[in-house]
């Protein structure tokens, strides 16, 4: 029973990691790639740590696994936010299908540095 549950958790976590990797390959943009990798990757890692907790079934290991899950859930959005903010402020080009760019007026005092690789309109 223990082994079966932990096996199911491992397969679920690996599936979420696979979804995250496919998202990183398929998405067109830095921000959408970050969106795909952060949430699915954090969920997959959390499921793998829960599988470890179920597999061993001891109090110390379970508490360490729960601490790891909490740390992942706390830090993954912060890291993604900082990467996205740095990317936007340094002028990484957005996807051409982007509809809304709400930060453009807010950062109008500091013009975005144009990327010489992409043609400007």
């Amino acid at each position, binding site marked *: 029973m223990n082994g079966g549950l932990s096996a199911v958790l*491992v397969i679920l976590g690996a599936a979420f990691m696979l979804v995250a990797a496919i998202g990183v390959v398929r998405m067109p943009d830095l921000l959408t790639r970050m969106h795909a990798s952060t949430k699915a990757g954090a969920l997959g890692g959390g499921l793998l740590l829960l599988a470890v907790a179920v597999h061993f079934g001891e109090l110390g290991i379970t508490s360490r696994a729960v601490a*790891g899950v909490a*740390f*992942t859930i706390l830090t993954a959005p912060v890291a993604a936010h*900082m*990467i996205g903010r*740095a*990317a936007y402020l340094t002028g990484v080009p957005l996807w051409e299908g982007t509809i809304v760019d709400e930060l453009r007026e807010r950062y109008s005092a500091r013009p975005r540095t144009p990327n010489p690789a992409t043609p400007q309109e």
Partner: protein
Amino acid sequence: MMAAYAIMTHQPVFLDVAILLALIAFLGTVAFALYVGKGRIP
């Protein structure tokens, strides 16, 4: 990944390795973002 190693080898020490790797990856990500965003480490 280190959690998978911990299950595969029945060795719970790898769980600590997983937590430490997560911590160091987060710190490295924050430092890299600060460096790219501001051009200097504050």
